[in-house]
């Protein structure tokens, strides 16, 4: 039995501890917002937070989550109110949308650590997240916008 918190709810699961966290989230817990893209930490579509750090859940065995707090896109905000989500809407970021959960989860850690990130900071934090539709210019703008919103206290 493996126990951890997902979006602040306790879960106890009887699964093979070597199963990647990604598939446990998607299949055992029905949290399909976290996506499979490569299975080898190359694309970032599966990015979630483990105790606040961005990790690639496709290569993290679920055993790594034991006793820890996992946050997925479903837990970013209950109502699209996270500054990044609001900025994503304002900049009309997504196209197909498949990579966006991972993009948002990576960006959320960036903003927590660097509330006013430079373009170089964005490059560094976001380069592990591939977008095949080419939404990078809008992601960059949206991160700056969210940072501005947070600094002016516009965000909750």
């Amino acid at each position, binding site marked *: 039995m493996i126990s951890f918190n*997902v979006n602040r709810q306790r879960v106890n699961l009887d699964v093979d501890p070597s199963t990647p966290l990604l*598939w446990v989230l998607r299949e055992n817990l029905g949290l399909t917002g976290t996506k499979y893209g490569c299975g080898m930490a190359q694309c970032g579509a599966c990015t979630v937070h483990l105790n606040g750090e961005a990790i690639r859940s496709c290569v993290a065995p679920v055993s790594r989550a034991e006793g820890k707090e996992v946050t*997925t896109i479903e837990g970013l905000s209950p109502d*699209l109110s996270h500054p990044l*989500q609001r900025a994503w809407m304002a900049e009309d970021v997504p196209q197909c*949308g498949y*990579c966006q959960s991972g993009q948002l989860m990576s960006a959320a850690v960036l903003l927590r650590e660097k509330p006013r990130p430079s373009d170089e900071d964005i490059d560094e934090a976001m380069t*592990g997240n591939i977008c095949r539709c080419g939404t990078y210019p809008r992601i960059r703008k949206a991160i700056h916008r969210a940072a501005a919103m947070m600094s002016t206290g516009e965000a909750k």
Partner: protein
Amino acid sequence: MSTLQMERREFLKFSVAASGGLLIGLYLPGASKLAVAEERSGSIFMPNAFLRIGIDERVTVIVNHSEMGQGVYTALPMLLAEELDADWNKVGYESAPVDPKYNHPVFGMQITGGSSSVWSAFEQYRKAGAAARAMLIAAAAQQWNADPATLRTGSGVVIDGANRKLSYGQLAETAAKMMPPAKVTLKDPKTFKLIGTPVKRLDTPEKINGKAVFGIDVKNPGMLTAVVARAPVFGAKVKSFDDSHARNMPGVRKVAAVPSGVAVVADSFWQAKLARDAVRIDWDEGEMHAFSTSQMMQQFREQAKSPGKSVRRDGDPDAALAKAAQKIEAVYEVPYLSHLMMEPLNCAVDLRADSCEIWTGTQFQTVDRAAAAKVAGLPNEKVQIHTTFLGGGFGRRATPRSDFVVEAVHVAKAAGVPVKVVWTREDDMQGGWYRPAFLHAIVGGVDASGNPVSWKSRLVGQSIFAGTMFEGMMKEKGYDPAAVEGVDDLPYEIPNLAVEYHQAEVGVPVQWWRSVGHSHTGFATECFVDELATLAHKDPYQFRRALLTKHPRHLAVLDLAAQKAGWSKPLPKGRARGIAVHFAFESYNAQVAEVSVTDGRVRVHRIVSAVDCGHYVNPGIIRAQLEGGAIFAASAALFQELTFENGRLQQTNFHTFPVMRMNECPEIETYIVENNEKSGGIGEPGVPCTAPAIANAVFAVTGERIRKLPMRMTEAV
């Protein structure tokens, strides 16, 4: 006649109880959130196949094209809502089921491709909205006992002369009893309120909170997951397999041979994948066992030495070439490419004795349904496809052979239970249906004043249409039009021009890849015209201008891109610009790329892209498609190549088939030409110019011509 009662859709809501007690409600795709509202609202106005209005005021637009990022779930509702005079805040979308009434009005089947969704829907969706508006006005006229001619509409309400208002929701029941108008009058485009404005995409909220359902997210009651071991070499067949270990692995329910390989069906993806990897298969590798792309390209080079099938011939190119003051020859080569959608292929199937339901992200509903029906042994009407969101398409999910759907029906048949086939990234990359590799051998000449007098293009590459239902289009012309599009209509004023094509026969399955033939013809022609400009000692922009005097729309985008890029303005040392212009999918695009080259690495700093796509619907989406098109094309030009040795693909995942990342992404500026020409495409037209604009810029900075993609700069510095 309008029908009051909509067909009651099967709407299932169920909860999955995880062992920890976490309860998650899951909605089946195909039954959207809006469907819930309709269940509650009861009575509904459904004037035609494209629209429903509930008494709760919800306006649901049924979209007959697949949403793969290009924005049809916003643009098509905009067309309808404009004529309906709907309150945009009440408008939602739903994917259409497979039905002839949702056929593409030009292509005659349900399909998303050819950058055609907006232009093909432009009148269709407006008329649907206008008809509904007329019926709502008639309903209000009846309630008020007024002359319909005295009534007007505004943002979801009908208004009379005394400024009384009835909302569309209030009128829905009565409107449903009205006869649809025999004839509808469309708005004067000058009065458009929505069309032409950058309204936000309707699908953004569910794409940023994890709720959007893609094919891979589909979960039906009792459904198992399958992973298939497919041939390591195209055309290989299973001789025998040993599943003694695999079938005893945890969660495995079934291991079965299917036409494409061996399917492992398990409780979860991970269990199916581990067991799939444990199946030992002895393959009869067939004719492709020794296939190598380097040998193939060598053959292409040999083939290019002899004349091919004539596609276009103006004047006497050979005589003109013999008399030319200066000549130049160049051979351009482009590789096989994977579409590499972020969401790997997948398909869920629930096959019963008398029905087959399919959930997948497809661009090809009509074709997939017919193919699935054949495998299922059912008539077409017994097969339904629920189109989910597509995690990228780029042409891969429009497969004339319906490979991923057909296979999933075979697996469901073998499994005997509802099943979802999921492809790993490696499966997806090795699964074929690539952009074909192509070779262009071009010879050209200029006269003493530097004017081009002759151009001969000879292409070698596989046909996409050959062997498919589109072969008829080839018979008409004697060649595959998709192989030569973009060079057969070369716009430059060159009096002697020849285009020839050698159709290569190779056992690698090929398919349309965002911008199809233009993805290589744009590169070859726009690089070669640049080479001619150099030969003529002329500025590449001015050289093109002089040859396009009869093509004002080409000229307009060329001028706009050049002007916005500051073409003649000096750049810092080590940087240079390249330019390209191309017409594709009824739209005109020009791009200027600004690059530098350091230690053999090409860095693209800026791309300016100008488009004329005629009368446009949503400039925000158009800009997004231009940005995305340039990045998609730059990824291919700089990094991407599929190669084969001993019949086996050498690339497996993003580390060996790279995609441009945030830190490599240039600044992109987009400009749209304003006019009222017929709407053109936008998903693909932004792709062809990027590779040649970058390659021409690399020449400008290094003096080395790039004639092979992806760009390798080892010799160039």
